[in-house]
């Protein structure tokens, strides 16, 4: 990640800047695939940036660059020193720096997606880093995962259950998952996807697009 050389620290109230969307979830649940899908679906209409928090190397960032869904300079990777959850929750400085670097280089942006390094069910984004967060599960973890909860499952703004195409193979009951998720999440939305079968994840993209429009409406810089 390159240093930026201007004083462009944003005010913390979020006025006049892009929506910051955290995408978290366990290893292998499809976070990177979802980010790629969102770039495909939204990249034509919105100005995007992506920050990845790889555990090792820059694999996720490289995957996104190879996927060609976004200009590669709009993708920055942050090293997390063995602690991916620390970098998105406790010490968000490096991620904020990356987000603001993107906004400075390519701004004004509409949306910056911060993808967490794969961690466990307790990892959530700090509100100082992400304005909205999506938690991604996949059915192969078993249909009990939503019932077991954890902050990601219960408090995320959107829960995405991915790889629904595998449900029959792993014996996961999607109805059970939906019911359990409703129990722990109340009215917060849950979407079921199979990004492999539907590479633009249209339903998730629509939700994200709605969030972006609501954010820009609420956080416009007042004209004086």
């Amino acid at each position: 990640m390159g240093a930026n050389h201007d004083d462009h620290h944003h005010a913390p109230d979020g006025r006049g800047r892009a929506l910051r969307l955290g995408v978290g979830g366990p290893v292998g649940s499809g976070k990177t695939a979802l980010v790629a899908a969102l770039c495909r679906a939204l990249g034509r209409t919105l100005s995007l940036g992506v920050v990845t928090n790889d555990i090792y190397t820059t694999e996720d960032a490289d995957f996104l660059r190879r996927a060609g869904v976004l200009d590669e300079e709009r993708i920055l990777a942050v090293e997390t020193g063995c602690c991916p959850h620390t970098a998105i929750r406790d010490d968000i400085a490096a991620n904020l720096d990356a987000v603001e670097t993107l906004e400075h280089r390519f701004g004004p942006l509409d949306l910056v997606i911060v993808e967490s390094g794969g961690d466990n069910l307790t990892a959530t984004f700090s509100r100082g880093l992400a304005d909205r967060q999506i938690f991604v599960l996949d059915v192969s973890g078993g249909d009990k995962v939503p019932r077991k909860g954890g902050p990601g499952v219960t408090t995320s703004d959107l829960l995405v259950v991915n790889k629904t195409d595998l449900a029959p193979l792993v014996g996961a009951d999607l109805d059970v998952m939906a019911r359990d998720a409703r129990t722990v999440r109340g009215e917060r939305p849950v979407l079921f996807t199979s990004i492999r079968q539907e590479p633009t994840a249209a339903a998730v993209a629509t939700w994200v697009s709605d969030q972006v429009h609501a954010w820009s409406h609420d956080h416009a810089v007042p004209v004086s």
Partner: protein
Amino acid sequence: MNPALLLLTDSRLPAGGHAHSGGAERAIASGAVRDVPSLEAFLRGRLHTTGTATAALTAAVCAEAASAEPRWAALDAEVDARTASPAQREASTTQGRLLLRVARRVWPSPVLDGLARATPSPHHPLALGVAAHAAGATPGEAALAAAYHAVSGAATAAVRLLGLDPVAVHGLLADLAPDLAAVAAQAGLAAGAAGWEALPAGSAPALDLIAEQHAQAAVRLFVS
């Protein structure tokens, strides 16, 4: 001691320090650091070489922060001249930028704003010295914070990477207390005496090699 010093040196200070190993990751990868005794040798070496330089520079910066027109560019150039390795300069300016961002919100002050205007990505000793001043600490206390910073990140990284007994490693840091005090005292004296050109310039050739190897490594968990 000024209580703000506790905040400045706390490893939970959200200024991105958790993702820097101070060369420990590469020293571990090469087998040079493998257990508590070799970690102790690593930390002592770090403290008594580059640690003496950064502590003295931090003290000088803290003292300069009290002047009406601080000469930040000249001090930043003194840090540059003492940091031959580009990877170490990059690690220092990245950490400096992130610390400056945090300090401006935690201890708002015109002198921090002035530093950000003069050098948005200052070397870490500049950010730490000015933050210490803004928080009400003395140059000697700022030097102590810098000396501790020279060892704490590497110690934490070794715990994570080698699975060392964290109590043993904290015992090691406690054993280093007299060294930390001595380095800080020497730094305080140096900063109060002659011109900046005469400040300590302790170098560690192995750290320079390690830093460049790390920057070129394909697989890494820590930024530096």
